[in-house]
């Protein structure tokens, strides 16, 4: 079994990230599982760029991994920043035309003059990235043809001459290693012989999920890290006959979505915290008028502009409670790249079924993470649409009729006899304005009770590890893989760890969590925010007040690692004796 963490570092704008991406695609086409993590410089050009690619021939990769096994350093800064995170016995591949590392015996070092080869043998400086890929192919056993095949697809349009230069650069890298490097490590990437994987970023998987769910109208305003959803759907949605509008602001974006939903279409917007802040007034309108729609919040570090390119999970409270009055909504947390695809289908299904806004929380780390997934089987997806009025309903139509499940058939403009006027003012079952406290109580209860039905869905939580654990770990959203890996590693060491990961965050899965925690004394709650938002909600909802909730909260930037979560779980289990 091979499981190798490669890290590439260098000057932003010099192709470091795209080199890592090419490397990623080549591995996925070899049937390997992939998990990437990247950090862009804040500036458009210049600054330091890093991409980490974990490659393994296992069934699932849960996290980006801990320390690096291989560091490819294009410049001194990359070496300075990342060398300490290269494990003992790891491999440093570096450009010795740029810098020389300190002499130590902690790691194996392969100097390769990427720049010099690119300049002297090829005559184009930026082909140094291809030289590096050629060297890696020879060093770690990825067939160079895979790189060439991808080059042809990516750069073929630039003409045969450009392509041949790139091929030459790859070959030069291969040749240099053959002639000058004596391999002293035992790391090899083993092509698995399995079906090639799709490599998708979280945002790509999410956008594809929306398309699979039947998205028809998208409206949005650019914001990091959600803009790639806007851009992806701008390209793909019109092909399916749908419409996309880049609006003047996020308020207008949600407005368009509300309008399209009113007209009977599946509609969504995607934004980040600042945009969601602008949307909350209209979110109340959508809850009040019972409109099915989906809002994605790709969270980033806040408040205010915060750190736009850094991840955080700090919008949970806003997603659940944001807005005036009490506006019910469903809040889902996406947990992995694969879950981004299926989670969006669930989001649309629940929005349609319960006629409610659904907020989907992802975050910068998950939005940009790339991972391999098996191609979804689109012929077996369950796709739901809203309940429409029958002829009997239309005979005496009441838009907000209270039914056993509180879901009222929704007439769509164009239907004869379905006339109604939706309004944000409190209204009766028939839709007429009404300021009577008794009616308000009845209608607000209808809207709240309606969405509680979602808690009967089988997918709302997922369990990992030991069923009756001595320490349970409950996190949310994109922390799933990290937690699962911590649980697996702990249990391999003989601990009794278990995790429950809620995919629904509101309405809160109180019953599922309390049932799971029967007999458990301690719960560790890792999340990426300062105040422990999820831990607080969890505490409020525990039936057994003796359960110790250990909040593991830190403000954003870098996700927790499996080792950190495991260390906290060990600490918690110590208190047992």
């Amino acid at each position: 079994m091979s499981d190798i963490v490669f890290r590439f570092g260098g000057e932003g704008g010099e192709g470091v990230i795209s080199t890592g991406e090419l490397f990623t695609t080549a591995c996925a086409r070899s049937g390997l599982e992939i998990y990437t993590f990247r950090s862009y410089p804040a500036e458009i050009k210049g600054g330091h760029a890093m991409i980490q690619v974990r490659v393994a021939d296992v069934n699932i990769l849960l996290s980006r991994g801990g320390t690096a096994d291989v560091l490819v350093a294009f410049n001194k800064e990359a070496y300075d920043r990342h060398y300490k995170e290269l494990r003992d016995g790891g491999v440093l591949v570096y450009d010795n035309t740029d810098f020389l590392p300190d002499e130590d015996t902690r790691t194996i070092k392969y100097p390769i003059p990427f720049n010099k080869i690119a300049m002297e043998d090829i005559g184009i400086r930026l082909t140094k990235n291809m030289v590096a890929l050629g060297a890696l192919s020879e060093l770690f056993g990825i067939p160079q043809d895979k790189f060439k095949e991808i080059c042809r697809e990516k750069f073929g349009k630039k003409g045969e001459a450009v392509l041949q230069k790139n091929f030459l650069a790859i070959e030069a890298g291969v040749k240099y290693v053959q002639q000058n490097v004596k391999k002293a490590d035992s790391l090899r990437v083993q092509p698995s012989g399995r079906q090639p994987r799709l490599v998708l970023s979280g945002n790509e998987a999410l956008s594809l999920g929306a398309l699979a769910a039947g998205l028809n109208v998208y409206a949005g305003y650019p914001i990091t890290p959600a803009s790639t959803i806007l851009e992806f759907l701008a390209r793909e949605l019109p092909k399916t006959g749908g419409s996309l509008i880049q609006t003047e602001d996020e308020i207008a974006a949600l407005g368009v979505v509300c309008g399209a939903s009113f007209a009977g279409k599946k509609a969504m917007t995607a934004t980040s915290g600042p945009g969601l802040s602008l949307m909350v007034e209209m979110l109340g309108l959508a809850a009040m008028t019972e409109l099915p729609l989906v809002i994605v919040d790709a969270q980033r570090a806040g408040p205010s502009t915060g750190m736009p390119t850094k991840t955080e999970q700090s919008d949970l409270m806003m997603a659940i409670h944001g807005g005036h009055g009490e506006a019910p909504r469903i809040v889902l947390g996406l947990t992995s790249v694969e879950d981004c695809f299926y989670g969006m289908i669930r989001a649309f299904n629940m929005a349609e079924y319960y006629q409610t806004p659904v907020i989907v929380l992802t975050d910068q780390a998950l939005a940009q993470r790339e991972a391999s997934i098996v191609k979804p089987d689109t012929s077996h997806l369950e796709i739901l649409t809203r309940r429409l009025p029958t002829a009997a309903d239309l005979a005496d139509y009441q838009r907000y009729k209270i039914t056993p499940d509180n879901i009222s058939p929704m007439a769509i403009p164009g239907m004869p006899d379905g006339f109604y006027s939706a309004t944000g003012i409190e209204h009766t079952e028939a839709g007429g304005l009404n300021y009577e406290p008794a009616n308000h109580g009845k209608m607000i209860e209808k809207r709240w009770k309606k969405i509680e039905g979602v808690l009967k869905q089988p997918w709302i939580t997922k369990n990992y590890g030991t069923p009756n654990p001595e320490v349970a770990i409950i996190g949310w959203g994109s922390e799933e893989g990290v937690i699962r890996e911590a649980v697996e590693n702990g249990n391999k060491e003989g601990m009794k760890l278990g995790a429950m990961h809620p995919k629904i965050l509101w309405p809160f899965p109180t019953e599922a969590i309390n049932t799971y925690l029967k007999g458990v004394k301690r719960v560790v709650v890792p999340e990426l925010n300062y105040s422990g938002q999820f831990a607080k909600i969890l505490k409020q909802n525990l039936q057994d007040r003796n359960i110790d909730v250990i909040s593991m909260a830190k403000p954003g930037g870098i996700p927790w690692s499996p080792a950190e979560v495991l260390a906290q779980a060990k600490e918690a289990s110590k208190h047992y004796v």
Partner: protein
Amino acid sequence: MSKMTAVQYKTKIEPVWCPGCGDFGVLNALCNALSVKEVDPKNMVFVSGIGCSGRLPPYVQSYGFHTVHGRVLPIATGIKVGNPDLTVIAVGGDGDAFAIGGGHIPHMARRNPSIVYIVMDNGTYGLTKGQASPTGPLGMKTGASPYGTVEPPLNPIAMALAYDASFVARGYSGKNKELEALIVRAMNHRGFSIIDVISPCITFYNTYKELPPQLAAIPADHDVKDRAKAFELALRDDKIHLGVFYENERPAFEDRLKETADKARGAGAPKLDEIFLEFA
């Protein structure tokens, strides 16, 4: 559908407006126009913002959406994009349109969806009991401006012309036949049409006496394609002109979106499975 009379376009719901409110005149003209245009109520949506004027949708036999303050235009756009076959009419007050919602108007003009926008302009915030609105005169004394306002009013017509809205007109709730004709023309226009309708608030800012002498019809020889001339008329301060200032046919938003979809599709609609292959 058999032709409906203006009365049949009205629902049985009694408007909440004060007796004498200009909005009654707007509602009448609207229903007359619908009868002339023979609009099928099931394919029509009235969308409104918040204000006295925003209460209009349920008074008309149609689908309606009474939304939030200032956001009627994006929501109307969503409805039109969601189903381009619907007749979409947006209504609201001058506060809704030019204060809180003012930021949306330039973008409606740029997009040019086939939506008729009727602003019931009374120079005041009727629903919140008479504060000054962006079209109220300088020095207007209200509860929120006891010493008189210090901001001069904006000129909705000049603003709409500057944004290059493709149909710009002004009407008066007290001139019902003329207003009906304006609404019919706006409904015939493909693209975004905005009609600023002077619709006095009898309770908080009664202008019924001083208005009539200031009103004048746009000269019959005015060329509605001439934007510069339209500006001249809009900027005149001796008279308040009524009629169509400007009309310019250009592709409507819903048509451009359809074109984009056709272009993107090329040979035919791709299956989701084909989109997946981009990531293999």
